[in-house]
């Protein structure tokens, strides 16, 4: 229900008796300023998460696909901005009224009332647009990591256009836009479901329709690891995401102009932080126990898992509960990664385990600490949004597949998308290791149909 700001008062949605009083008071200029400023600053932090996803993914793909993933991550953010202006915002927020969709149309700022001294809107319209837009970008970023290393760049960007312009806003209208799920009481504070699992479902259908990277799954269920090329970059990405998440959740208070909001913001940020701590430490402990080594990428994923888990309800738990909610997320991610591998769903960076699995967990965990929500309603939200995204994104992936094509050629996959699509190497000065047998840049040929290879004599390597 959050994110649908009721303009009469900045505090209408905060269920605290003391505020009954405030609800009738007109919004003051100071409140208007602070609410707006919060949207802008917190929105800037959320934008920063695009860089975090970019660095995380650049660190976790092999060096031959690094430039491509960089380009994807920055250009999807560009697409999110343009599409949210062209149709996304209005589809999500304009006249949803308990229904299933907003209206089509360019978005335009309108702050005439505020400039005339009526601050009842609560915040400037651009600041709200900006804050909502950056969330849309985050959903896209989830997809890019999962389908990396084999998808054609323009095909991916076309998918992003539809995701940002149509899929994300329609489902978003159901809860945050004041649609049917919001009426029902579905609670997703900052987007465990609306952002993370939406990205996750779209990534899941994409990964299935694309298929696994060549050589990832060997004979007899063998999983061939394809280690990421730059661990400190992945760590930096995680730090950036962690930082940005303070804005993601903290900004979702949607107000700063009264004491209750700022108290809530403090709680949200403290809980967000401790959920990340819990997720990371739980994942590290789990990996140490299971594998006798601490896989650093699992630790990173654990932190993100904690963050995703708390996102549906960061305002209600105590700090201890936040650690637990995050911690369960951290455990889930360690179990989910090999699970998806067993299903031969090839998720390059662990996006499904982090964003989809923990997005669901986080949403379902809300009723533990929030008496106003029910498992039933939360489940309906998770399922309906899941179903919608699975169907709609599958259609889009398939249309792309049978028109401009989705997957690069096997040769291009072997050479790497950087050379094939960008004509550039990410690290041209460095001698990179191509020793197949070292498991790194491995191309395990048992997965490659010999015929295919013989038919394309030009690009061979």
């Amino acid at each position: 229900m959050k994110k649908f700001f009721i303009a009469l008062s900045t505090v209408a949605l905060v269920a605290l008796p003391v505020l009954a009083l405030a609800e009738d008071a007109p919004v003051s200029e100071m409140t208007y300023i602070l609410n707006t400023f919060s949207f802008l600053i917190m929105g800037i932090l959320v934008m920063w998460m695009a860089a975090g996803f970019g660095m995380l993914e650049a660190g976790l793909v092999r060096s031959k696909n690094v430039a491509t993933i960089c380009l994807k991550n920055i250009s999807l953010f560009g697409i999110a901005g343009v599409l949210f202006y062209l149709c996304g915002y209005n589809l999500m927020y304009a006249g949803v009224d308990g229904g299933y969709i907003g209206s089509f149309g360019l978005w335009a700022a309108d702050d005439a009332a505020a400039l005339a001294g009526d601050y009842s809107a609560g915040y400037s319209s651009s600041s709200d647009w900006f804050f909502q837009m950056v969330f849309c970008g985050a959903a896209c970023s989830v997809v890019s990591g999962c389908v990396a290393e084999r998808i054609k760049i323009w095909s991916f960007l076309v998918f992003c256009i539809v995701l940002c312009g149509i899929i994300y806003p329609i489902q978003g209208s159901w809860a945050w836009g004041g649609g049917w799920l919001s009426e029902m009481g579905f609670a997703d504070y900052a987007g465990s479901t609306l952002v993370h699992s939406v990205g996750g479902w779209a990534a899941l259908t994409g990964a299935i329709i694309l298929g696994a990277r060549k050589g990832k799954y060997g004979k007899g269920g063998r999983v061939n690891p394809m280690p990421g090329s730059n661990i400190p970059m992945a760590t930096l990405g995680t730090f950036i995401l962690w930082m940005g998440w303070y804005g993601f959740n903290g900004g979702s208070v949607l107000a700063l102009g009264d004491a209750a909001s700022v108290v809530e913001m403090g709680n949200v940020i403290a809980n967000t932080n401790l959920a990340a701590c819990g997720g990371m430490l739980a994942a590290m402990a789990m990996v140490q126990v299971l594998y006798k080594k601490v896989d650093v990428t699992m630790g990173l994923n654990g932190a993100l898992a904690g963050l995703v888990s708390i996102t549906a309800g960061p305002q209600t738990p105590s700090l201890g509960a936040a650690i637990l909610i995050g911690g369960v997320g951290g455990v889930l991610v360690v179990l989910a990664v090999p699970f998806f591998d067993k299903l031969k769903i090839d998720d390059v960076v662990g996006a499904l385990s982090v964003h989809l699995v923990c997005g669901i967990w986080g949403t379902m965990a809300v009723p533990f600490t929030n008496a106003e929500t029910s498992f039933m309603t939360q489940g309906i939200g998770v399922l309906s949004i899941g179903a919608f995204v699975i169907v709609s994104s599958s259609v889009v992936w398939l249309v792309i597949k049978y028109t401009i094509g989705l997957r690069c050629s096997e040769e291009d996959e072997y050479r790497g998308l950087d050379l094939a699509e960008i004509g550039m190497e990410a690290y041209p000065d460095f001698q990179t290791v191509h020793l197949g047998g070292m498991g790194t840049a491995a191309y395990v040929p048992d997965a490659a149909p010999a015929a295919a290879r013989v038919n394309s004599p030009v690009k061979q390597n």
Partner: protein
Amino acid sequence: MMKKIECIVKPFKLDDVKNAITELGISGMTVSEVRGFGRQKGHTELYRGAEYQVDFLPKIKIDLVVSEEQVPAIIAAVQKEACTGRIGDGKIFVSDVEQSIRIRTGENGIEAL
């Protein structure tokens, strides 16, 4: 007599070649990354509006020192495994080695391999 076999192969063939060789009972080899120039042409890259030709392609060189009688079998195995039928599959060169020493033990000749 001992021979040195140098095989220059496509990088993704390393695993197959290694397996085929070890199946012949050879227990050691030394591998290095090299860049090959040959009939297989390179590719063009693009950087900020200027294209340029990259002539050298990544290849793997496998060095094996073996006893003379093993040479034909190894050549056959490498050729079978490394061959894709397309330009750039690589070469095998054979030459003489006069002496071999295992550093750890000081063993000499064939025993050192």
